[in-house]
């Protein structure tokens, strides 16, 4: 009885102490007087390498620029990048390698849902921060109050759910849509889109219409399109990535069917109109940032494009900015944390509410004690004359409520 009482008292005391940020709570490693080691794993050779390769390039460029500018409070960043081929098993082993052998201070901008979910317990178990993964999955920022280690997770990637919901809401309200349909990729990402679709329709009290899906890498969308057409849809939400989005709108156009379309962040990229040409004209898109074009970019974006081109020999794309932003945001908050950079001081700096703004005109990012998802707003654009044109900024589906 007494011993148990003492024990629980001790636990209460310990947790109470732990709650005070002044005391060291999480482990710090990978920070020396001259260097900060950060680790990441992305798909450079598997099914989503078209995301991983440019994102990793963007990250490399950011690190280069940060170091060239003197680093973070005098420390240079050392980036260790691993190719997980979108294989969760490899991601687990590589994360462990990054933590134990490379002594990474933080895992920054790791890519994919399954590939970040499986190693997450390792990162948290080691008491290291898991920052700005390139996935919008909820577990990367959602905190369980009972788990202090959940404070280690931060994300600033607009959830697919939010952007899709905003997109559907915006287009429906502005265009008097009666029958919105959705076509989605049959995986975890697609699930976010269908959830957004049904929640938003419930909100607007509009009955659901046709839902059709396809497998990643599908080539033929004729039957999906024909089903939506037969159902008389006047808006099609595309829960798909660029290639499939192009395939769907092209197939529809060939059938002489031209509903309105809305896409979310995976398709809100210039590739959409580059590849889809006329068929994609008029599509609405929702994403985190404004879309830039190398020939019309100005200021910092132009500098970024030139530096990227110099380093990799090709133009950057929107995927490149996600890696670039990840490293830049890390540098921003690590700089805020001051000379005494520890995991705790970094978390403190991030939870301070200081706003990080990227160079691409993205929604401002800020975190707080109980919100580790840094963005809440998105940009809405539309393809006009073969280019994305921003039509509304700083929007959220929650805004007007």
């Amino acid at each position, binding site marked *: 009885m007494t011993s148990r009482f003492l024990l629980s008292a001790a636990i209460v005391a310990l947790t109470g102490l732990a709650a005070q940020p002044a005391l060291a709570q999480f482990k710090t490693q990978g920070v020396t007087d001259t260097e900060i080691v950060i680790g990441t794993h992305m798909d*450079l*050779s*598997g099914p989503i*390498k078209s995301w*991983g*390769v440019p994102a*990793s390039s963007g990250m490399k460029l950011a690190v280069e620029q940060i170091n060239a500018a003197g680093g973070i409070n005098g420390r240079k960043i050392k980036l*260790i*990048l*691993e*190719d997980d*081929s979108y*294989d*969760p*098993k*490899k991601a*687990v*082993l*590589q994360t*462990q*390698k990054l*933590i*134990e*052998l490379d002594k990474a201070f933080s895992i920054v901008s790791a890519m994919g*849902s*399954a590939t970040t*979910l*499986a190693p997450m*317990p390792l990162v948290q178990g080691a008491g290291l921060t898991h920052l700005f993964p390139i996935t919008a999955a909820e577990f990367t920022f959602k905190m369980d109050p009972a788990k202090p280690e959940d404070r280690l997770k931060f994300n600033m990637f607009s959830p697919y759910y939010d952007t899709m919901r905003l997109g559907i809401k915006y287009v429906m309200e502005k265009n008097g849509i009666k029958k919105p349909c959705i076509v989605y990729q*049959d*995986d*975890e990402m*697609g*699930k976010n889109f269908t959830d957004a679709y049904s929640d938003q329709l419930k909100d607007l009290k509009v009955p659901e219409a046709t839902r059709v899906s396809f497998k990643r890498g599908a080539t033929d969308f004729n039957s999906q399109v024909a089903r939506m057409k037969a159902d008389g849809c006047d808006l099609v939400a595309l829960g798909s990535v660029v290639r499939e989005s192009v395939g769907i709108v092209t197939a529809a156009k060939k059938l002489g069917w031209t509903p309105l379309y809305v896409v979310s962040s995976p398709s809100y990229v210039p590739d959409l109109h580059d590849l889809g040409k006329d068929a994609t004209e008029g599509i609405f898109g929702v994403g985190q940032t404004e879309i830039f074009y190398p020939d019309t970019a100005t200021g910092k974006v132009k500098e970024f494009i030139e530096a990227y081109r110099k380093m990799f020999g090709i133009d950057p794309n929107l995927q490149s900015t996600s890696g670039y932003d990840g490293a830049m945001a890390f540098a921003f908050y690590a700089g805020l944390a001051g000379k005494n950079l520890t995991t705790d001081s970094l978390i403190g700096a991030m939870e301070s509410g200081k706003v990080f703004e990227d160079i691409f005109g993205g929604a401002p990012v800020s975190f707080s004690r109980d919100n580790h998802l840094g963005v809440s707003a998105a940009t809405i654009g539309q393809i006009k004359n073969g280019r994305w044109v921003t039509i509304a900024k700083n929007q959220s589906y929650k805004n007007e409520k």
Partner: protein
Amino acid sequence: MAHHVRTGYGDSDPLFLSKAAVFWYAVLLAGLIAAPYVIEPYYLSQLVFIMIYAIVGVALNILSGQAGQVSIGHAAFLAIGAYFTAVAQKHGVPLVLYLPLAGVFTGIAGYLVGLPALRLHGIYLAIATLAFAFIVEEIIARWESVTHGNEGLMLPPPSLFGWKLGTEGFYYLCLLVTVLVILAAINIIRSSTGRSFMAIRDSETAARSMGIDTASYKTTAFALSAGITGIAGALYAHKMSFISPEMFSLAVSIDFVMIIIIGGLVSLRGAVFGAIFMIMADPLLIILKDKVPVWTDAMMHGLFLPDTVTQAVQAGVLRVVNAPGLKSLIFGIIIIVFIIYEPMGLDGRWQRVKAYFKQFPLARQRSARPPRMFLKSERR
């Protein structure tokens, strides 16, 4: 040709061929038991994956190596075992129960898949197993009430008799299961069942004429193989602590076949070697990628070349090692080179190295070509 003089028939197929073998296996086991106290968790993790892959390797060895039946859909069995585990654990079934049950449940699935195997041969069977795997993946993705579909399932850490298994605990669990599975496989192979598998592999006609019910043994082989893979799936689910349908894709099935091809089709040792290779290849390539620039740098400095040359070479090396997709290129080349030059797999190499040292200094280079084909022409 040397042959042992036997003193009795009881020792016809002993577990260990010699006292030396007993000794070395004991050393290996002692090393594995000591591992958590000696090596870092990163390497322990690799060992766990190796053991899980080795279990699958053993399963495929029984099916393909022993019974000569092809499957390129084994990821489906891994998935069934993994999902069974996740669901059973959620419903409070204890580990001692759901681990073997995962095997039994998956074994039944394997039995059902084995039924078409009675009529199909070679490539037809292979494609049928492939089709099965796709269908299983789709069912998992669609059966949301049980599997949570594409969202996937989280698994809490496993616990044994109320004790949460930590990293070490789970490692020992895997070690125990691996040893038991290998022992079971050895027992199968050296018994009447194993001989029937072998007979079906080498000549189905002769097998039938020897009184072997080939249909029943083929389905048995499928059921056994699936069951063992299901147990591996249970361990895999716990190791990953999260499972989703896309984790059991065709690529995983192909990885599994690689295990036995690279390790060597006929022996269990080959399955273990293959598992080691499949898991270690990636970390080794990563380490190479990290080290090669360091090495070249050191080498260039040793050569006292002008700085510009050093820098140019260094930049070139960095460019090559950092090229995206390089790893899968190297892996592909390794596989091809392996099959061309080491057709009997790692185990074949091991046997020859052992023979070389045994016969030293009289050893002669023997042909590396395989003496025969195990899976015969399908054009019958």
